[in-house]
């Protein structure tokens, strides 16, 4: 497992190369890339981060995912700092023997990254700056996962 909290952009080809340097004991790879949505008049997005806690939290999220599904390698890159519309924010690469495991685990990890990893997004427009608030719908997704594991 590999977690990279960084200000730098990532290149998917290079990331898959790094991913493949680990175990190759998988028949499926699920890849998710989250980007800055180009909202109207959005100039940039600032992402604040608590890197030491993010490392610990993402590690624990991946450990929970491993207890739920049969997974091989996991590589996660999450950016912070100042980003432009269409810039990459997050990358989750997961290997598994069968696609349903890595695809479900990817969804699970992203849901938890969104609401429980210590990152905070601020949208910067020409005339205003808005800290994005946590959405009720995102918390409901965590509740659904918890209900499934009961």
């Amino acid at each position, binding site marked *: 497992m590999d977690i990279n909290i960084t200000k730098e952009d990532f290149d998917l080809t290079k990331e898959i190369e790094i991913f493949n340097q680990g175990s190759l004991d998988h028949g499926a790879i699920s890849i998710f890339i989250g980007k800055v949505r180009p909202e109207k008049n959005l100039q940039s997005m600032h992402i604040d981060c*608590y890197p030491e806690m993010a490392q*610990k939290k993402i590690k624990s999220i991946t450990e929970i995912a491993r207890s739920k599904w049969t997974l091989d390698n996991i590589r996660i890159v999450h950016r912070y700092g100042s980003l432009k519309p269409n810039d990459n924010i*997050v990358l989750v690469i997961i290997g598994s023997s069968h696609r349903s495991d890595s695809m479900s685990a990817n969804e699970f990890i992203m849901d938890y990254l969104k609401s*429980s990893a*210590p990152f*905070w997004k601020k949208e910067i427009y020409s005339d205003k700056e808005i800290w994005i608030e946590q959405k009720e719908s995102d918390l409901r997704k965590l509740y659904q996962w918890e209900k499934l594991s009961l």
Partner: protein
Amino acid sequence: MKLKYFAWIAEIIDKREESLEIPSEIETIGQLVNYLSSIDETYKKAFEKRKNIKFAVNQVLVNENELISKADEIAFFPPMTGG
């Protein structure tokens, strides 16, 4: 005690982190928030919307009743919006 602030809380307090001497009778996060709010209007303003603030002790999410000590790193931040 090392204190860290993130997102709009850091903006209001105008600091990312600081080390403060905290009176020994302060035993929990909730008491620490009350104490900080009582010594300076800036903290009071930052902690006004108390239910919108989350706390971590040594990088682990906790609630207001968590016991704290001088060696701890305490962080204050709004609900997370990663991903």
